[in-house]
Structures are given as C-alpha cells and as structure tokens.
C-alpha cells in the first residue's frame, strides 16, 4: 500500500475544499493507504477542539478522530498559522500534531502521491 501526503490551505466551514480533502484522506485510508494530512493557513482551524455539529455546517471532527484511530492517519497543523489565529497547543484535539512547514515538505519526500489543495 502507498503513502499519500495531502496538504490544504482551505478554511474550515468557509470552504468545502477542506471537507473534500478529508473525504479524500478517508477514502485512501479505507483502501489501506497511509495518509499524512497537513493544514496551513485557514485550514488550521480544523485543529481547534470544541467544535460543535450544526446541520448547516460541515462537521469533520468525528471523521478525523476515526481516522486517527486507524493508526494510518497523521494530522498536523502549521504551528505558526495556529498561533497567529490565537489558539495554542492546549487547544488542539487529541491526536493532532503541530509542526513547522518543513514537516510537510519532509512528508512529501517518501510520499507516493502529494495532493495539495491550495487556495481558499
């Protein structure tokens, strides 16, 4: 099985591109692949705990926790992007990592495919 690195800049709720990225990761993990999932910019809002489900908005936390539980899914937020948005390590949900941008580039090194969902 392969390794995918998925990077996204797109915002939580404000854009469905982040939802698409998570669905892509979910499909890959279900097929037995490993996925590194990187969030920069507005996408880092996914790495904030305490999100609530409303029918008008997408809710990704449950899917993310299920993916983390598989052991084949690493999810990492850009630390500077998160700090700039006013939330800190203690605000991160369990299982999420926070790293600098070079972590993402390093992840691409061994990836069979890199899917970068840029923009907002």
């Amino acid at each position, binding site marked *: 099985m392969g390794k995918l690195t998925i*990077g996204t*800049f797109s915002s939580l709720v404000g854009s469905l591109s982040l939802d698409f990225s998570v669905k892509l990761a979910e499909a890959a993990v279900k097929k037995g692949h490993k996925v590194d999932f990187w969030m*920069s*910019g*507005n996408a880092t809002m996914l790495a904030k705990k305490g999100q609530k489900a409303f029918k008008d908005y997408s809710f990704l936390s449950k899917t993310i926790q299920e993916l983390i539980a598989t052991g084949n899914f690493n999810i990492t937020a850009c630390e500077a992007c998160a700090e700039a948005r006013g939330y800190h390590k203690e605000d991160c949900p369990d299982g999420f990592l926070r790293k*600098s*941008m*070079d*972590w*993402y*580039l*390093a*992840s*691409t*090194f061994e*990836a069979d*495919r*890199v899917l*970068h969902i*840029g*923009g*907002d």
Partner: protein
Amino acid sequence: MATKKLAFVVRSLPYKTEASRLALTHAISSQTVEIYLNDGDLVEASVSYVSDGVFNVLKNQQGGKHYGITTNEGHAKNTLLLDLKVLVCKEDLDKFGLTEENLVMDAEDIGGETKANIVPYSEIQKEMETADHLLFC
C-alpha cells in the same frame, strides 16, 4: 541518498488570500527540511509564478504600510537569497503589461546571487514535468 523536486506553482493574487504567501513560506522551509530526513536526502523546491501569481513579484509592495505585515515581495526576495529556482511566466507578464523593470529579479541588496528568470510558459511546463510533486497555490 536522494533528492525530491517540489514545484510550487503560484497562481493566486497576493494579499487577497494567504495562498501565495504560504506557497513562498513553504518553499523557503525546504532549507530546513533535512532535520526530518536521513543524511544525504534532500527536498529541492522551485517557485514558478503564473497567471495572477505574477503580481506577487511586483516591486515596491506596501504590505507593511497598509496591513502591518511583511510583503510577498520580501518573501520572493528570500527565495532568491536562498538560491531557489524562480521562474516567471513571460506571457502572463505581457498580458498585464509588466516588464522586468517592475519585478523583484534578484536579492543583491541582501547578499543574494541568484536571479529570477522570465521564461515562456513552455519552460514552466518543463519544470513541472521534471518535478516529483506539484503544489499549486
């Protein structure tokens, strides 16, 4: 020992969203990626500006004055200081009436030796074809 080539393709306007700035900061972070890799392994980033993305390399940006933030011009200059390969699409510059005079073409004032290259899109296409991974921003 191996080198993986990443091609960042900057196609979004500066300041309107964060995407182009993030492209530049991610590309710059290739300089410290070795801490995560085995000895001898490398990640090599290039930056190509196409479409609206060419506005990111305009000179005399006023991000500091108007938003109190660093400019994309400064980040573009840093990519040259760090010897990243930088390509700017000639056809898109022509479309906007921009010339080399309008652009950050080097980082000589901060000690850089590498210059940006204004090239036809076909050259950028070649750069993308030789990259291991493409990152559109």
